[in-house]
């Protein structure tokens, strides 16, 4: 009987001896044996975990404590058919929602950053004030002028006589006003004439 024939059984399957003689199998076995302590430790840890789960499931008191704690910490959620259907619809729309959020998020984050950035806020406020200041100044000047005129008019209630009127007519401000009035009357007259013809 040759060695080759001896390594085969009657139904032509390789014998254990032949399989062990394969260098690849031998290498794998050595590797496995090398890692065996690690695997044993893992199996032991798994065993401990399973034992813990077994004890926990048997311990009704601990289970009740755990579930009541979770109920207190989590928000009140009703997981019914409607909620699950909404969740599925939300998942279906997730790609579009994420695309939208991606666009909005930078703007929101910019707004949040600005809201927290006091230096930038101060800079903006001072800038706005610098633009508004000249207008405010002019408005204050105009108000002061009107107030002064009103006060003077209230103080001096003497009637304006003919001589007073003639003197007044020589005032450049009054002249300017009258010239403007004359021009306005002339232009308005022309427009009216145009409208009739």
């Amino acid at each position, binding site marked *: 009987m040759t060695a080759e024939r001896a390594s085969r059984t009657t139904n032509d399957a390789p014998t254990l001896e032949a399989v062990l003689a394969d260098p690849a199998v031998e290498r794998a076995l050595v590797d496995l044996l090398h890692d065996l302590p690690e695997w044993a430790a893992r199996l032991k840890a798994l065993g401990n975990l399973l034992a813990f789960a077994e004890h926990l499931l048997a311990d009704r008191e601990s289970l009740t404590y755990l579930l009541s704690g979770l109920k207190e910490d989590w928000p009140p959620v009703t997981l019914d058919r409607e909620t699950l259907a909404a969740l599925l619809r939300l998942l279906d729309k997730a790609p579009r929602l994420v695309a939208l959020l991606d666009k909005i998020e930078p703007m929101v*984050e*910019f707004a949040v*950053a*600005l809201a927290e*950035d006091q*230096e*930038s806020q101060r*800079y*903006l406020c001072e800038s706005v004030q610098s633009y508004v200041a000249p207008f405010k100044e002019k408005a204050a000047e105009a108000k002061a002028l009107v107030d002064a005129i009103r006060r003077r008019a209230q103080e001096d209630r003497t009637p304006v006589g003919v001589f007073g009127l003639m003197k007044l007519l020589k005032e450049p401000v009054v002249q300017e006003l009258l010239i403007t009035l004359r021009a306005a009357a002339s232009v308005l007259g022309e427009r009216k004439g145009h409208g009739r013809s």
Partner: protein
Amino acid sequence: MRFKIVIVGGGTGGITVAAQLLRRWRALSGEIAIIEPSEKHYYQPLWTLVGAGITPLSVTVREEERVIPPGAVWIRDAVELFLPGENRIVLKSGESIAYDWLVVAAGIQLDWDKIDGIREALESGTVGSNYAFDTVEKTWNALKRFEGGMALFTAPNTPVKCGGAPQKIMYLAEDSMRRKGVRAKATVRFVSGGTMIFSVPKFAATLNRIVRERNIETHFRHNLVALDPVKQEAIFENLESGDRVRMPYDFLHVVPPQSAPDFIKESPLADAAGWVDVDMHTLQHKRYPNVFGIGDNTNLPTARTGAAIRKQAPVLVHNLLAAIRGEPLSARYNGYASCPLVTGYGRLMLAEFVYGDVPSETFPFDQAKERFSMYVLKKELLPIIYWDGMLKGVM
């Protein structure tokens, strides 16, 4: 020390890239290091307005610590040596930092010492420069004192950050002279090492008109090489003839020559001119695929501005993350840059363009016109967008 991503430079490019990376991929928290020696972070685009007495200097500076995005590790040191073959950098302190991916965002170097006598001149009271935090207020102080005579504004023949800045201060100064009533007694002269007022023809047309209308003299191909602060003379080299040309001044705004930082020039990352050698579209280094570059220190053929970095950062971040995942680099930078050219108090022309000096305007109107709205955009809104949008990685 080892980090997944090391970013060299905590300026505009470095911080923007770090913030965007951390927003896109939270798992990078603690895996990104930013190497930056400076304790301060500056918003330099406002220095033009500081030099014209419009904005206080204090609003342009913040503590570096405050702009480092949460999740990034700030290493307060400077790079001494790049060893891209070993995926390692060596710091000035001697410490070595290994990386998987490197982003180079170290900015540009001001070569003051290429102008003889500049240090003394900057202390004379008649000379200023909007190009450094320490010298920008000198510009306004000298301008306030100016009562007439020769006002010189220089620009070197090297690449500079914000190519429009040398003339922005000139337009503002000229406007300030008019407001003060001394313009008739002044000569305003722009002396540049370049060949033209602006490279994009559409915007150059407006600037040439302004220069003509406001009676500003222009001298091109003249490079400032020395200053005599005692005689108040600026010495230029005529780049055509090689002759030395002396010009007296009563006010002088100097733009220093600029180049890539020395530690980049001397590294394997540099091209022949010393800049980080990156692909102009993907921003990936041409020889080291795990290295990317952004901003002023790169050889990208476009203007070196913060606006350019704003468009480069998302491209770099997209391509860097793709490279990490082993995917192709699909994002492409088109060379976008913007130059808000302040032409006077309350006036600005917003130049925007892409590679090839092709205008690429954002707003639905002719941006080659000077506008108050664009001035408000630069002065009021862009600083806010910078601090709260760009540096946060959201804009």
